[in-house]
């Protein structure tokens, strides 16, 4: 049974905390209780530290009692994906390889969360090293979809999506390399955003594919996502790829509708493979925009058919390099038995990594090998520029691009585990935003006949997050999909 507090919107929670009607300790306790009630079935969390969370909450309450100034998220619990380093808390990326690893430093986004007064409530499950689209690749346990626990919640930020969807946390952070925020947000019926590459610091985000990874927010509504992004975005001198641009106050403008909004509808995202009920819900959402005065325009993304192939060359190439540091020498898993340095490497990595991680490392090593790099890695970089070019042309015509997040609603656990290629295709609509470095978000836009959530994806030109939030909120005001609760949370 869901506590009444846990089902309130983020704005309401903030108001109640600010007016001292609600104390952070009570709020945090309510969400902790919700976790205790549901997480045994859902498997969204891999690490909880109740004492640390309640201490953070008590500190916020004490500051408020003393009349001290408070950050914008003061007292709000936030769950974080197990891919972000936090001083003194384990960070495992849901891998045996990093079991027991405790980083001695805070990721920049964690430092910013603390500055904003947020209470880090727990660390969420994920596909190992963020490689996966179903949450099943966790070395610890799979995460289940709260709308149907026989189904996957999406991935790789499976736990962060489920934590918010099942109201075990009002907000959470995920990371998105090819759709890892937007896809599970869509499959779990919540809001998720991948910001522009460079908008949010990657310092302390354990890398999967450095040129694609971005940290982003999950929330139950658009305003919550805007507030959380506002708190974590901005230039970071510790990340050379973070961009030095001022961060707009998204939460202040989110309720301002966009006049004369031009929405691009990519022909390629409504092609073969798209499930009819998903298409129906997305087209209905487009009609809502039309009724609000938006203009719909067909756009073409001709190179999008190469996006999945391009992604799996670039992401795996970078991953093969990023994951080389897990060699059993300095930290992480080291095999017990070996007779030489070579054997120590082989056994430690062989035991520490799961199958999907090994598959991607091998693919990446191959794509970068002498004699193959030109054919694969370098070629993929060229296609990546063409994909970006497609978007640049499209955004000369339209303000946002709208379409489905995924080809189908959530599938069953185990349904695609033996067929990696079909699993990879579940990211077909989300991957190009990472390749092009664009912001994209997923908002709830309906349900299948079986009662599974369907997501609407909105994408914009680089650094146009403000426009995305406003466009998303226009739709959200007209609909109530985001207010529905999964059956197990009733």
């Amino acid at each position: 049974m869901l506590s009444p507090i846990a089902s309130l919107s983020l704005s309401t929670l903030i108001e109640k905390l600010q007016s001292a009607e609600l104390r952070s300790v009570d709020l945090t306790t309510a969400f902790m209780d919700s976790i205790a009630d549901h997480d045994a079935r859902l498997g969204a969390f891999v690490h909880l530290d109740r004492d640390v969370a309640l201490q953070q909450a008590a500190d916020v309450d004490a500051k408020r009692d003393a009349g001290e100034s408070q950050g914008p998220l003061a007292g709000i619990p936030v769950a974080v994906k197990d891919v972000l380093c936090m001083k003194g808390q384990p960070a495992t990326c849901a891998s045996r390889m990093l079991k027991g690893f405790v980083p001695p430093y805070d990721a920049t986004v964690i430092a910013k969360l603390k500055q904003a007064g947020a209470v880090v409530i727990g660390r969420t499950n994920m596909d190992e090293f963020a490689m996966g689209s179903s949450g099943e690749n966790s070395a610890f346990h799979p995460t289940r979809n709260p709308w149907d626990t026989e189904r996957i919640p999406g991935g790789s930020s499976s736990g962060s999506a489920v934590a918010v969807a099942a109201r075990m946390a009002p907000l959470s952070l995920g990371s998105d390399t090819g759709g890892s925020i937007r896809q599970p947000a869509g499959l779990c019926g919540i809001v998720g955003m991948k910001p522009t590459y460079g908008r949010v610091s990657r310092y302390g985000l354990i890398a999967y594919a450095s040129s694609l990874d971005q940290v982003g927010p999950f929330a139950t509504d658009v305003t919550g996502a805007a507030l959380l992004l506002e708190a974590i975005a901005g230039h970071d001198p510790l990340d050379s790829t973070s961009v030095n641009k001022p961060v707009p106050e998204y939460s202040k403008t989110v309720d301002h509708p966009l006049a004369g909004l031009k929405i691009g509808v990519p022909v390629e995202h409504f092609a073969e493979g798209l499930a009819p009920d998903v298409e129906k819900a997305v087209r209905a959402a487009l009609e809502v925009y039309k009724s609000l005065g938006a203009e719909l325009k067909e756009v073409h993304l001709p190179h999008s058919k190469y996006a999945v192939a391009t992604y799996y060359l670039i992401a795996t190439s970078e991953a093969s390099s990023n994951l080389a540091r897990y060699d059993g020498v300095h930290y992480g898993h080291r095999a017990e038995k070996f007779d030489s340095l070579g054997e120590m490497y082989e056994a430690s990595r062989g035991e520490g990594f799961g199958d999907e991680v090994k598959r991607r490392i091998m693919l990446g090593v191959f794509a970068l090998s002498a004699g193959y790099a030109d054919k694969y890695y370098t070629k993929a970089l060229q296609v990546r520029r063409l994909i970006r070019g497609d978007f640049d042309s499209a955004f000369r015509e339209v303000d946002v691009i709208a379409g489905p997040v995924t080809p189908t609603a959530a599938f069953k656990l185990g349904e695609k585990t033996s067929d990696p290629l079909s699993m990879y295709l579940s990211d077909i609509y989300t991957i190009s935003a990472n390749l092009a470095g664009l912001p994209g978000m997923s908002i709830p836009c309906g349900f299948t006949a079986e009662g599974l959530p369907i997501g609407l994806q909105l994408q914009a030109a680089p650094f146009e997050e403000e426009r995305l939030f406003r466009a998303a909120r226009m739709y959200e005001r007209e609909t109530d999909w985001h207010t529905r609760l999964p059956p197990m949370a009733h």
Partner: protein
Amino acid sequence: MSYDVIIGLEVHVQLQTQTKIFCGCSTMFNPDHPNVQTCPVCLGLPGALPVLNGHGFRLAVKTALGLNCQIAPYTKWDRKQYFYPDLPKGYQISQFDLPFSHDGHVDVEIAADAKSGKAASSRRVRILRAHMEEDAGKNMHDESGHGRDSKVDLNRAGTPLVEIVTEPDLRSSEEARRFLEELKLLLTYLDVSDCNMQEGSLRCDANVNLHVHQPDGSKVATPIVEVKNLNSFRFTEQAIEHEIARQWKWFQETGIKLGDKGGYKSTRGYNPDRGETYILREKEEAADYRYFPDPDLVPVLMSESQVAEIRREMPEAPALRRTRFESEYQLTGYDAAVIIDQGREFADYFEGVVKSCKDGKQAANWITQDVLREIKQREQTIAEFAVRPEVLGALLDRINQKQITIKSAREVFGELLSESDEQSAAPSVSRIDEIVAAKGLGIVEDAGAIDAAIAAVLGRSAKAIADFRGGNEKAIGALIGQVMKAVKGADPQTVKEKIIAAMSQL
């Protein structure tokens, strides 16, 4: 049959920065306290990201400009991937296809050798490229023989390096050593590296092979050998010598050429105790480092005006300064080289002395002999030497002004030094005049006194006068000596002239 020796060098130079290339950790040489100069970045912890040290990059550009290299307007960072315990990320951040600089040269002068009768020569060594990279840590293996754990010290990991790659333009081990000496001189002049080889600030790999002359006039190449990790100039010279002899013997025995079966490029180490190279890797398998651009770093753009600005900050390169010393101060090539080769501070000292005494030759004589001798004896650097350039210049100026003799000046110089040794304070210019006055070393201008002394000496030196007239020019020395003894502080040149004049009138 004869052969040409073909040598190319790869030199790793540690840049003199306070902090590492991609993080804020100290670069201090600190082998007694392992792993204290580390942070998430240079430990390669999950999630940590590199940020380029801009100062280090400028030092690298200075280095390349000193090597007469072109500076690339666009350069990027690549990952060189291999597994090794001293490499915490599993890759080294380096530069692959777009190094920040390329196509330079260093001119090396090789002195004449009296023993072999070889004339002086010079060699232009082309620089193929110079690129920047991070250093690895240091593995420390248990040498007790008890098979205890190996350990890794990451204090050095992330220290900025420039790797300088020459074309195979060197033709002897001596040229290779001279190249390294000239390189070290250049880098210390530019203040970009301390080139301390004991601390590993300068390390060298040498690629060596022979081009053997055939009876028909053609040449065949012996397999190329890379001798790794030479950590002194002497070892580099010795290792190359050994390699030349070894390859020549091997070629005569087997006739195996580069590219033949068994004629692969190989890698060897050098054992200085045995004076021999030894095999490290028999067959140089083309190691696949799977280089690719580091997505955590952004490319560096260098405009012409930024390069010009760095060029303006650079001190005069030693080769140019050597030539200028010869023309501006009329120094011999030898003296100019002795002064320049002592390093920038020493050359600055020389120019400080010249500024005060306006006599380059006089200054060079004193500095290459007296000063050099004294600092060597005291095991001092020129910066620590008590007699500062303006004081030595003032002393030399007094010789030129005929206020004191060279002999007296040496006495004053010795006195200044022994006083400073006692008081450990640098003497001032005024101390010169006090010593001259106290010791009565001033040149006596009193012609009457000198004339009287000459008359007296000549009066009792009939034999010496006869000897001198009989053609024994040395005989006059004794006469000068007697006059000088009688008139302290007399200028020996004046005395000599007066004696000759007086004798002609006898």
